[in-house]
């Protein structure tokens, strides 16, 4: 009997991924195509970021993907001087939360923006990004 293939695409997410198998694995394919995606419940219209495969409002799993596009507003951020194991080579880096109105997105700020230029309330857009170790994530850049 042929070995059952395991869909572990999610192990490509972030500098170190702690999850390999999830029903939201298509998120990785979208990142590869340059898109950052969330999910939306086809039944009640609830919008989810980070994406989820089940809607707790409808107790249903009838979801579709939508693209996180346009600019959001920077709510807060912090530059790390120390990181967990596996993130040493990325230091220093800045994590941030960006508000898109219907949903918020947590991620990293692009190294292209100097830390001194960051300001709560500024506009930022999410962009897919390939890390030096070949892994994928997304970063916030100037729109």
């Amino acid at each position, binding site marked *: 009997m042929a070995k059952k293939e395991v869909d572990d695409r*999610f192990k490509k*997410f*972030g*500098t*170190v*991924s*702690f*999850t390999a198998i*999830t029903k939201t694995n298509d998120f990785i394919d979208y990142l590869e195509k340059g898109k950052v995606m969330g999910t939306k419940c086809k039944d009640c219209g609830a919008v989810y*970021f*980070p994406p989820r495969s089940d809607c707790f409002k409808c107790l249903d799993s009838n979801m579709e993907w939508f693209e996180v596009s346009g600019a959001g507003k920077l*709510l*807060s*951020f*912090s*530059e*790390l*001087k*120390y*990181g*967990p*194991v*596996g*993130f040493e080579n*990325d230091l220093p*880096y800045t*994590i*941030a*939360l960006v508000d898109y109105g219907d*949903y*918020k*997105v*947590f*991620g*990293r700020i692009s190294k292209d923006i100097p*830390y001194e230029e960051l300001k*709560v*309330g500024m506009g930022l857009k999410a962009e897919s990004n390939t890390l030096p170790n070949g*892994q994928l*994530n997304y970063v916030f850049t100037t729109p």
Partner: protein
Amino acid sequence: MAKVGIIGVGQSSFVRGYPGSIRELAFEGFKEAMEDAKIHIKDIDASIIASAPEYDKQRSPAGVIAEYLGLIPQPTFYIESICSSSSTGVKVAYSMIKAGIHDVVAVIGFQKMSEISSSESQERMGRGADIQWESPFGTMMPAYYAMYARAHMATYGTTLEDLAKIRVKAATYGQINEKAVYRKAVTMEMFTDPESNMSATVAKPLRVGDCCANADGSSCIIIANEEKAKAMSKNPIWILGIGAASETVNMAGRDLLTGLSVGIEAGKQAYAMAGVTPKDIDVAEVHDCFTIAEMMAYENLGFAKPGEGKDLIASKETYKEGHIPVNVDGGLLSKGHPIGATGGSQIRTIVLQLRGEAGEMQVKNPEIGLVHNIGGVGLYGNVTILGR
């Protein structure tokens, strides 16, 4: 309605690198609580053991610790909600007693953070958030609280100096608390002195001085129904109100970035149940894992209006002599934060205060005290109101 009372409290010294195993550490807090309650192990109907399991090598520590403390064959339950594990344990014990299932329950919180190596600890710290969607970005506890600090600063004009004042207060009392891990003074100047470790950035804008001290430690709270509490104890401290709440793990799910919603929600529940308002609180213990966390707790619990926490600390009203003394045992910042033991230690402090047994740290004649204990980055929150 029958009351539920605390008849014994204890804690170990909070230390770096405890020279013993987790069961021996748990024994220290338990022994002090049993000697305080002056009861026998046969008087205890059940035990609740609380810790954050990622620091334990022992799988399911409850059985091992219950055995070591002689609490066999009574039932033992393992409870965890990270940094608020032992106050969650107290809530569960309260519920079991109220339900009439048990009469006397011991809640034992412990954490031997040095059980694992520092590299193992660093690895676990990377998994302290939503491991699917946030940890892959390289998140750390201080960075999350730093985001709250940044948002508080942007909204209310709070400054690094305001935050440093909270640490200076904590150190004032850490020096006189013989159980504290950090016994030294901290001055405002240290935060601007590049030679001082306190001024070193951990996650902008937070500095070493803004972060609590990791420690090994244990705590124990013995809780009884009204009848047993009155029969066993001369001075039981009653649980007047007990609230608990949860929030999204993911920062993307949070609506409030200038406070912790779990503190607000659990506080509302506890105040309503106790039938008191923030003005009635004579002494409080709040979860100051970072200076910003204490600042937010002032505002979330109604000791100050949103944005006015900085005025409360500037006026020294949260010092021992002020109108609302907070963390006059050194808090997590100086007393130390052995995760699973912390909530129990906070409750012990308030019980000693209400009994008038807090020694040099004693606040003048308090009648009602409050304990605010948070798990994770505002993921879980418990607020407990105690009275004589």
